[in-house]
């Protein structure tokens, strides 16, 4: 699951919709009147190119290819069969071509807003409040904490597991699947609320071994991504998890 979450994505296009918009713009056609055959051909050529460049193609690009192929095949149907198909589409679900067009139109609007936001961001970068926007010194400077090693973390984790084992004897054991990405969010959220959290507090209320493992994996992942840091005042002391400096 972790690997999936962090699959490197194609940077050139933000996704299949972005690529499609690009192709439509390039061929200078109306978004409501896409020549499906032509666009599908170009789309598939792009995917080929991405393969040749050894770029990791996200699954979404392949799903879109399948959708385009489906639309194309329907358009190739003889007229009467197409009418039949359309009638069926109306009763069941939306015709895939219109669904796609609508999605493209909607996506394009947000893309335009994103461009607007990008401009505002640039402008805002030039503007400063008083004190450079920095916090005014509060005088309650944190004690300097030494960075700790991964082994310290694992030690702490072991402790937690041992304690959980004791707890599990008492409690019911719940068969649960805790997702690492949910835990990632919980940790980040907690940190954004509190700034720092004690290592053990993260596990204090864990209901099962599975949850502890998920939490721990999330911690490691966040450390790897340099989003958080683990620190310790004294050796073998309490480990503190803090947000990494921006």
């Amino acid at each position, binding site marked *: 699951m972790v690997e999936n*979450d*962090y699959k490197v*994505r194609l940077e050139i296009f*933000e*996704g*299949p*919709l972005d690529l499609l918009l690009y192709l439509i713009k390039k061929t200078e056609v109306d978004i409501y009147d896409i020549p499906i055959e032509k666009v*599908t*051909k*170009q789309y*598939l*050529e792009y*995917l*080929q190119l991405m393969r040749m460049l050894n770029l990791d193609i*996200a*699954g*979404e690009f*392949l*799903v879109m*290819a*399948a959708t385009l*192929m489906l639309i194309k095949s329907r358009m190739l149907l003889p007229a009467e069969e197409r009418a039949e198909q359309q009638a069926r589409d109306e009763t069941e679900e*939306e015709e895939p071509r219109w*669904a*796609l067009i*609508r*999605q493209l139109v*909607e*996506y394009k*609007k*947000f*893309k*335009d*807003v*994103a*461009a*607007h*936001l*990008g401009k*505002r*961001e*640039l402008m*805002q*970068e*030039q*503007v*400063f*409040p*008083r*004190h*450079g926007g920095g916090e*005014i010194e509060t005088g309650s400077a944190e004690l300097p904490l030494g960075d700790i090693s991964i082994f310290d973390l694992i030690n702490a984790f072991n402790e937690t597991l041992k304690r959980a084992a004791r707890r599990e004897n008492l409690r019911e054991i719940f068969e649960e699947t805790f997702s690492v990405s*949910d835990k*990632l*969010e919980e940790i*980040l*959220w907690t940190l*954004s609320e509190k700034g720092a959290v004690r290592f053990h507090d993260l596990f204090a209320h864990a209901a099962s071994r599975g949850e502890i493992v998920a939490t721990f994996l999330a911690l490691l992942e966040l450390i790897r991504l340099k*989003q958080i840091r683990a620190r310790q005042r004294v050796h073998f002391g309490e480990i503190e998890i803090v947000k990494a400096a*921006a």
Partner: protein
Amino acid sequence: MNIKPIIEALLFAARKPLSPKELRAVFTGGGDEKPDPALAGYKRVKEAEIAGAIEELKVDYINDDRSFMVAEVAGGFQIVSKPDFGPWLKRLLNVDRPQRLSPSALETLAIIAYRQPITRNEMEAVRGVNVDGVLRTLLERGLVKITGRSGLPGKPIQYGTTQAFLEHFGLRDLEDLPAIEELRRLEAKKQQAVPPPAPAAEPPAPPTPLPSGGNP
């Protein structure tokens, strides 16, 4: 009883944008244990008077060609330096301003801003790609927050934009975004008319192997 100088001092000293409401609270002295008698004469100041004084200040700074201005950000007012001096201030403060957002972060943020509260699946339906990583960045930067849970099956988490989002882009409020009404209406209509199409959200089955090349 001129409130303009007081408001100027307040805006000047505040660390964050102040709304007319907050300014008014200063005049009415809410939360003061032992009210200072010297300040008592201002208890009845109205928000409209405050807004008027702020307007005057704005004009003052423009007429006097000061290097700062009164900006309206995130529902409040704040005195900030004019953009022209950005390069100088960067040099002085030696700031590493937070990195600019990537195009995909901006896109996702735009969707969240207009459609909040919104679940991850709903974002992915619009963007057509997975938003995990991007969403995490936005949460980490404090531009987006969890706002609750949807009533949909599985109770997925819902997200919305934060005060920091408005500040980052220098927006007065969400209405300050372009065509926000139009984009919202689109959504409302869609929900009435058709059942929500579930496009990219759940790719059905394994991605079909690609037919090689383009065939006519």
